[in-house]
């Protein structure tokens, strides 16, 4: 291919000494360091970069920057890479996206021929019947989907995030943004300056020789200023409440998220050049003026050989100068400021061949450049609550009212020569600095400090006006062309949508999908509004834009996700479990032993000798203060006033709707010291719950809550020989039944470790002690207990054995035997509900449930054939009715090794839950079995003799 590379240009970004090899659709290409993918390909003569979404039309360079809708390519395993922005890297494997069989010949381009039948919303109007063919049609339609390919085997790219606390954050590193950053810094602010392109400078970068001196001066000043942090190839993705600003640093394909709390945000996003709507406006060879200036000045690439320029502004004029300097033959200049209808259509088959001007005159050309006006990227301002206002004289939307902590500078506000833009940026930056420092001082006053905080002069700066220059309203020419290049939507499509009744901009957008593609409304949004307004005989002001929503530019999921911070929690004894053959189970955030080989044997050993389980995941909360009993009385349904020092009590916590959400025990260890345990999964929730009530309803109560789940390792020693075992290792405590009875707690020394907490409670139904030891000594105490009990038959047991034993004992598990509607009465703990207490969470609902009767109840159930274990979730059906109606479900079920039969808990509709009733359980395989309801929840040792021994 011929090289389109020009001789050295004064401001070029390429390094001609550094050759870079890469592949494009399997063919070797070369470029220079500093090239974008697109500039290197253009230099190599490539004209077609993609095929359009719907009609599969060939597409070439339009804007030659990040937002070019025609330059989406696949780079290796990365889809939708912006070839107009992404810098070339050695060995890059670049391919065109979604083409079949190839970019040069796409078989689906046949759609172009039938294009007139593919009117907007055509899919809503066809394949209505027969229904049987619809899924085939859907599959075909999906094959026309846009975008690159995802390889599910791509290794995850989790990138770290960081926080930033700039006083002033400037979005946009053009002349206004640079000037604003300098002025804010001059005022004493710390500044973060974010620029989307690889270099600072904005339009000055490709502004030709005249722009070089002011750019060099600004760059030198920024370089010299240590208070300005410059992020290039980065973008401000969104502005959220209280100036919480997302910034994405791009390093090639690897993105990092910076989360900044900016005291003041300056939006200096400049202007985005708008395409013109006319026939053939998407032909390769039709470019915007900015694209031409970028290709020539930044990358030294000749965008064509013979050009027609249609210009209405200085950007087009500058492009003409650039083209002439580059030696491109300027065949014709149509000055649209004089007459807007001069440009009729672009003509060509697959690429531009000629341009038709008014009067039917055709000019041969391989390049057509348009310069018809601007879209203001007000996205960040909209996210701050601003609604932009259309100015017909300037033919663009301009910022409206901004909040105090957001300012706009430069081209987004108005126009002028570089000096005016810089001047405006300076004033805005100076004022932004003042506002930021005022905020900083206010924040510092809130923080006790040894040194007095900075004080800032309060007088504000009047920012001089930067008026928007007059510009003809040029949106669409006399012929029909594309409004949205990504979505293949034409002006006539928008007009047709209006005619069909989709006559508000939001409806037309959704119907035609204009502005819904990857560029959103940045390029064609205003054109769509203008075409819509014309079709609806309305003004652009009245039509308004659709909502700009974050992010301003798309962000990779990897950058948003960052490094996975979800903790995995292990108990201090975890390594021991692994070494001793434990099978792990994921239990919420914890990994814990499910069993050590044979859960049944673990149960039997615990019931006959002594077992030990690692209970460290239990939620643990240390409560101190004079008013702890008041808090306990409020969050638990039962009574706590009478709890004496040394006693432990079980309690159920209900939300305000009376639904059980946690249970556990609390011990009173000293007069003003309590120790609460919660379910493993509920640890965080309960702690939040306590603190929420303390902070919102009881701020005067003297209660301090400390979450100590990780501070203590916990182990439960259970079984008839557990006391004997504990006596061997515990000291400073009398474990005899008389002095340390069931439901008591003591602080003691265990295996030489002081300040251990021993609670005599029994989830398993056995004589048992829960030993809580400072976490660092967990393994030591665990090992000591095992060593001391070797002759007593001690063996560890896991979660599964504990689940079996608690089921034998009839204890329910919150979340398994209860659900999101199970109130305390339903759960069968009515005896623990003291409605005569002054108040407690859930009281009104429980009072009412108690009076009206619970609609469902938890019951213990035993299959008549004790060898059958109905799987959990088996339905209980009313077999008397003709159609089987569900009247409940099995919530827990196991084979009991102790009883040698299957046992269950179930929730059933109250009338069916009487003791002695026989119910029908439908097994998942469809077979029905009979099961008997017990009088109580307890399958084993209902008198609790084992427990209290």
């Amino acid at each position, binding site marked *: 291919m011929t090289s389109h590379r020009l001789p050295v240009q004064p401001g070029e970004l390429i390094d001609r000494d550094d050759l870079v090899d890469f592949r494009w659709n399997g063919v070797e290409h070369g470029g220079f360091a500093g090239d974008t993918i697109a500039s290197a390909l253009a230099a190599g003569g490539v004209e077609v970069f993609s095929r359009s979404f719907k009609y599969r039309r060939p597409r070439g360079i339009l804007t030659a920057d990040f937002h070019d809708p025609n330059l989406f390519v696949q780079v290796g395993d990365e889809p*939708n890479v912006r070839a107009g922005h992404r810098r070339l890297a050695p060995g890059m494997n670049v391919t065109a996206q979604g083409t079949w069989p190839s970019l040069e010949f796409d078989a689906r381009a046949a759609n172009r021929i039938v294009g007139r*039948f593919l009117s907007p919303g*055509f*899919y*809503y*109007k*066809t*394949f*209505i019947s027969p*229904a049987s063919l619809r899924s085939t049609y859907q599959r075909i339609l*999906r094959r026309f*989907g*846009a*975008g*690159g390919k*995802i*390889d599910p085997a*791509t*290794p*995850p790219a*989790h990138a770290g995030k960081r926080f930033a606390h700039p006083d002033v954050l400037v979005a946009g590193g053009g002349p206004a943004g640079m000037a604003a950053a300098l002025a804010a810094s001059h005022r004493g602010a710390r500044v973060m300056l974010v620029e989307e392109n690889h270099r600072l400078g904005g339009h000055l970068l490709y502004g030709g020789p005249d722009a070089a001196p002011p750019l060099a001066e600004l760059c030198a000043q920024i370089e010299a200023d240590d208070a300005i942090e410059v992020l290039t190839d980065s973008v401000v993705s969104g502005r*959220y409440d209280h100036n919480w600003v997302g910034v994405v640093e791009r390093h090639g394909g690897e993105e990092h998220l910076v989360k900044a709390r900016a005291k003041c945000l300056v939006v200096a996003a400049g202007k985005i050049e708008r395409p013109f709507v006319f026939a053939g406006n998407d032909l390769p060879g039709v470019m915007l003026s900015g694209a031409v200036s970028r290709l020539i000045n930044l990358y030294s690439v000749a965008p064509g050989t013979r050009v027609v320029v249609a210009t209405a502004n200085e950007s087009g004029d500058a492009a003409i100068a650039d083209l002439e300097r580059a030696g491109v033959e300027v065949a014709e200049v149509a000055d649209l400021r004089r007459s807007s209808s001069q440009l009729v259509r672009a003509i060509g088959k697959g690429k531009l061949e000629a341009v038709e001007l008014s009067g039917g005159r055709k000019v041969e050309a391989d390049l057509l450049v348009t310069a018809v006006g601007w879209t203001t990227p007000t996205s960040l301002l909209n996210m701050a609550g601003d609604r932009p206002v259309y100015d017909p004289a300037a033919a663009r939307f301009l910022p409206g009212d901004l909040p105090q902590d957001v300012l706009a500078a430069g081209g987004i506000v108005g126009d002028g020569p570089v000096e005016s833009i810089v001047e405006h940026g300076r004033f805005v930056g100076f004022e932004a600095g003042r506002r930021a420092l005022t905020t900083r001082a206010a924040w510092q006053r809130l923080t006790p400090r040894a040194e007095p905080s900075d004080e800032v002069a309060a007088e504000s700066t009047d920012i001089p006006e930067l008026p928007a220059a007059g510009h003809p309203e040029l949106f669409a020419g006399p012929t029909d062309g594309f409004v949205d290049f990504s979505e293949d939507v034409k002006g006539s499509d928008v007009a*047709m949508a209006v*005619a*069909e*009744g989709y006559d*508000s901009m*939001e*409806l037309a957008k*959704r119907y035609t999908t204009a502005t819904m593609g*990857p560029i959103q409304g940045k390029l064609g949004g205003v054109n769509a509004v203008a075409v819509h307004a014309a079709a609806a005989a309305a003004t652009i002001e009245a039509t308004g834009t659709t909502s700009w*929503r*974050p992010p301003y530019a*798309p*962000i*990779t*999921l*990897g950058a*948003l*996700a*960052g490094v*996975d911070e979800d903790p*995995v929690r292990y108990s201090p004894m975890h390594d021991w479990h692994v070494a001793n053959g434990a099978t792990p189970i*994921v*239990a*919420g955030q914890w990994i814990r032993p499910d069993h050590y080989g044979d859960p049944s044997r673990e149960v039997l050993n615990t019931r006959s000798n002594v077992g030990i389980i690692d209970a460290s995941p239990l939620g643990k909360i240390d409560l101190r203060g004079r008013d702890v009993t008041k808090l306990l009385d409020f969050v638990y349904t039962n009574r706590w006033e009478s709890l004496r020092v040394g006693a432990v009590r079980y309690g159920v916590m209900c939300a305000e*709707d009376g639904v059980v959400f946690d249970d556990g025990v609390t011990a009173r260890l000293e007069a003003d010291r309590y120790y609460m345990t919660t379910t493993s999964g509920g640890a965080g929730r309960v702690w939040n719950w306590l603190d929420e009530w303390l902070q919102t309803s009881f701020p005067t109560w003297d209660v301090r809550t400390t979450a100590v789940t990780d501070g203590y390792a916990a182990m439960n020693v259970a079984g008839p020989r557990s006391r004997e075992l504990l006596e061997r290792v515990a000291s400073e405590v009398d474990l005899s039944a008389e002095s340390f009875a069931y439901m008591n707690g003591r602080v003691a020394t265990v295996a030489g470790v002081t300040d251990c907490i021993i609670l005599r409670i029994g989830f398993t139904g056995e004589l048992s002690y829960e030993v809580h030891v400072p976490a660092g000594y967990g393994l030591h105490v665990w090992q000591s207990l095992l060593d001391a009990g070797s002759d007593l038959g001690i063996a560890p047991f896991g979660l599964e054995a504990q689940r079996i034993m608690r089921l034998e004992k009839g204890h329910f598990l919150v979340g*398994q035997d209860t659900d*999101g*509607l199970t109130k305390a009465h339903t759960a069968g703990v009515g005896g623990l509900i003291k409605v005569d207490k002054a108040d407690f969470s859930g009281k009104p609902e429980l009072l009412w*449930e108690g009076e*009206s009767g619970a*609609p469902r109840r938890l019951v213990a159930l035993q299959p008549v054939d004790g060898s059958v274990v109905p799987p*959990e*979730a*088996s339905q209980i*059906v009313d077999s008397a009715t003709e159609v089987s109606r*569900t009247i409940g*479900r099995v919530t827990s079920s196991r084979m009991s090794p102790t009883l040698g039969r299957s046992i269950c808990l179930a929730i059933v509709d109250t009338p069916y839950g009487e003791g002695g009733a026989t119910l029908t359980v439908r097994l*998942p395989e469809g077979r029905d079995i009979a099961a008997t309801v017990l009088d109580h929840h307890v399958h084993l040792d209902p008198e609790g003799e084992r427990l209290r021994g």
Partner: protein
Amino acid sequence: MARYPSRYSALSLLRKGATRSNWPRAWRHHELKSSYDVVIIGGGLHGLATAYYLARNHGITNVAVLEKAYIGGGGSGRNTAIVRSNYLTPEGSAFYDRSVQLYEGLTEDLNFNIMFEQRGHMTLAHNDASLRTMRWRAEVNKLGGIDSKVISPAEVKELAPAIDISDRPRYPIHGALWHPPGGIVRHDAVVWGYARGADARGAHIHQGTEVTGIDVAGDRVIGVQTSHGPVATPIVINCTAGWSTLIADMAGVQLPITTRPLQAAVTEPVQPFLDPVIVSGTLHVYVSQTARGELVFGASVDPYSSYSSRGSLGFTEGLAGHVLELMPGISKMRLLRQWAGLCDMTPDFGPIIGPTPVDGFYVDVGWGTYGFKAGPVAGEQVAAMVATGAIPELIASFGLERFEEGALTAEKGAAAVGH
């Protein structure tokens, strides 16, 4: 001038294309009359479906649908367009099963292709407890005749190869509830189809018409005040979401509803790689790939009350983390757009459908996160209720009085994310 209403078909599409003639309006403009037999507040899916079924099933056509902005701009246009019927409770699954049936026939019924793609709906279980809930749902569904079963991790991988079923993830996959009839719909199309159908049968759709007051005489509704003047009517149906409590207040009716945002987001399109809808309750996320190739994500409702439809940065961070936990290979896909919709949450997560203490004032509100998938059946049943004066069996358990009588629906028993 084209004939009205115009029938949509492949043939008519060809004919229009060949002759380059215009389609008629899908729905017409009308002057607001001074009285209607029925006034429906809210031009979303529920309001328009109600208007459609009032006309289609009951011949009631003197109906106005009042929409303060444009049709389908609220929850109807902000949801993630998932349809399924594998609910946890018998009453829930029977109700949504009817909705799926209606969705399946809607394209032909409305003569408008709503693009219901029944690519299946998969709810992942990451631990014992959620696998137990899946079994519970499967058993309830089985009894109700709904196609729903628990599948193994290997089957998950087969149906959705992008999902990581190894033991690497923080939340490994233990199985899933698989519901083949579930899928996604082009949500706007449903709104437009109902609007076109209701309009063709005589209902008046008034966009840009805000209700500013509800006139009640004694304990009867007699009309509404609007931004375009008063309208007399004996029947008002509140089919709004987000602002349903404020509308009910206008009639002096208090609803036990709090409004919370639910955030969603969409990525840039890529070639099709994900067929089913994927839901993870543990990770609070659901994902589907649209016909256009975008991934659509949704989450649980935000943990606070708000009327804001703006998204937050924290939401997208958490969302991306959770999605990559499920599908680590898509970390290079880019998030394109985020937004929020408003969810009216009731104490038991069930909707409120039925009469109110004010005669003639009906509500079809409180849809929480389930409003879209319920649209057709809600419209059908509300229309039947208004037309016949009797409350149909399918919605009998959703009455406002249940909050006084304590007969709450049990859907809250399900996992927090039910999509």
